[in-house]
C-alpha cells in the first residue's frame, strides 16, 4: 500500500462519520430547520471527503472531472432543495424550535 493510497483511504473513511451524523441528526433533532442543518452536513462535507479520497487515488483526468462534477451537482441540488423547503416552511408559518417554551 503506497502513501497516496493510504491518504486517499483515510479521506474516504473520514467522510463516513459525516453521513452517520446526518442520519442521527435527522432522527434526533427536534424540528424541520434543525434537521435541514444536519442534512446539509452529510451532503457537503461527507460526500466532499469521499470524492476527495477517490480523486487522490484515481489515475485518469476524466475520472477526476467526473467526480468533481458529481460533487458539484449534489451541492447545487442540496442547496436548491434545502432553500425551497425552508422557504416553504416559513411561508406556512411553522415556528422554529426554541429551548424555552
Amino acid at each position, binding site marked *: 500500500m503506497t502513501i497516496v493510497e493510504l491518504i486517499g483511504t483515510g479521506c*474516504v473513511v473520514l467522510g463516513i462519520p459525516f453521513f452517520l451524523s446526518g*442520519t442521527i441528526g435527522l432522527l434526533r433533532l427536534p424540528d424541520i430547520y434543525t434537521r435541514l442543518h444536519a442534512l446539509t452536513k452529510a451532503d457537503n462535507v461527507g460526500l466532499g471527503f469521499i470524492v476527495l479520497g477517490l480523486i487522490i487515488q484515481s489515475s485518469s483526468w476524466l475520472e477526476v472531472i467526473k467526480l468533481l462534477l458529481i460533487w458539484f451537482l449534489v451541492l447545487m441540488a*442540496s442547496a436548491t432543495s434545502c432553500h*425551497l*423547503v425552508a422557504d416553504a416552511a416559513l411561508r406556512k408559518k411553522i415556528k422554529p424550535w426554541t429551548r424555552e417554551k
Partner: protein
Amino acid sequence: MNTFYVSLALILLLSVAAGLLRILRGPTAADRMMAAQLFGTCGVAILLLLARGFDALIVEDVALVFALLAALSTVAFVRRAWTGKITPKGRRHDHR
C-alpha cells in the same frame, strides 16, 4: 474486488435503513421528503464506494445521473404537493 470499500458501503446502507424511521414517523410532510433527499445523497456515496470496490468505472456514471436528478423530486414536492402555486410576486394562491 476491494472488500474494505464494500464494507464502508454496507455501513452507509445501514445508516440509510436507520433513516427510514424518519420517513415512517416524521410529523410533517417535509420531514419525510428530507429523509428521501438524504437517501439520494447516501445513494450517490454508496455508488461511488461500490464503483471503487468492484472496479467498475461505469457505476460512476450511474452516480452522476443520481446526482443530476437528486433535486427533481424535492422540487416537485415543494412546488406541487406541499404549497400551492407560488407566483413570481411571492403571493401564494392555491390551485383551483
